[in-house]
């Protein structure tokens, strides 16, 4: 390779290379084509795709889907915790409770509560 061969390609070189067309095809290739051409009628054509099937599927399907989704959401949504229901309390139990709280009843009077709050607290000596 002489020094000229290593020069970078010019734009004209590039255009010529990119635009180059094939001169001829091989006899083997032509033979393969003839065989293929004879087989073409036996190749099943692809059926024409239907474009409107989606909307036929969608319109009856969507309300059903929406209702099903709503049902799923309603069934599985998290419920807020409910307070525990009070148990049954008998009248005798209430009386007993009242009796137990009797000694502390004086504390319920506001005057006594205030007085107690202002008692000086002395540590036991």
């Amino acid at each position, binding site marked *: 390779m002489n020094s*000229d061969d290593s020069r*970078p390609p010019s734009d004209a070189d590039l*255009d010529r290379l990119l635009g180059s067309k*094939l001169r001829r095809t091989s006899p083997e290739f032509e033979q393969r084509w003839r065989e293929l*051409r004879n087989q073409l009628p036996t190749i099943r054509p692809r059926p*024409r795709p239907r474009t409107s099937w989606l909307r036929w599927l969608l*319109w009856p399907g969507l309300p059903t889907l929406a209702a099903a989704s709503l049902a799923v959401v309603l069934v599985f949504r998290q419920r807020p915790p409910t307070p525990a229901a009070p148990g049954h309390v008998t009248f005798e139990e209430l009386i007993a409770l009242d009796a137990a709280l009797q000694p502390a009843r004086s504390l319920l009077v506001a005057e006594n509560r205030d007085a107690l709050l202002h008692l000086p607290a002395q540590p036991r000596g």
Partner: protein
Amino acid sequence: MNLVCAFPAPFDWLLRVLNAAAAPDPAPAPEIADEDALCLARGAAGDERAWQELFDKWKKPLLAFFYRSLGSMPEAEDLTLEVFVRLHRSAASYERRAAFTTYLFHIARNLLLNELRRRRRKPAQSLPPEAFDYIAAPESDDARRATELEEIFQRALAQLPEAQRSLLLLVHQQDLDHGTTAATLGLTANALRVQLHRARQHLKALMQPSP
């Protein structure tokens, strides 16, 4: 009806489906009457001569496209024949809303991408440069230079990303107009111009002799 604001963001997919289903059928695009499309229609109707005409017209452009893309003539021949099988299969459903060349090279490029995905490239089995039509007199300096350039060119093409290579080949080798090329490759006209310039610069850079 356009359902836009009725659904919160997580239901975007549902909104899109509803809008797609609610949209009226697009108006049919005008049919493009090109000679090849008519030939394909004849072929679909059972006219065997139509297939021969299409083959005679497009075999060399397709072979050249695949050869330049893959660097192997046996593979190029396989894919060219496969294009005609695909054309035959889809001929009945072909709607003349785009140029035939767009349709043809769309098929060709899909096959090419499948091939590139299917296997890693084999070492190129180069054709002699005489196979192409630009070679000057044999044994001349020009011929030697052309041989050298042909090897450098094919090697550089193999290093280009597929999108750039296909773009260059469709525009410069197949002489497709920019509109047809853009439609085939899914580009806008502006993007095509930019990409074409970049691809050409990239190819030239790859063909520069290494220091």
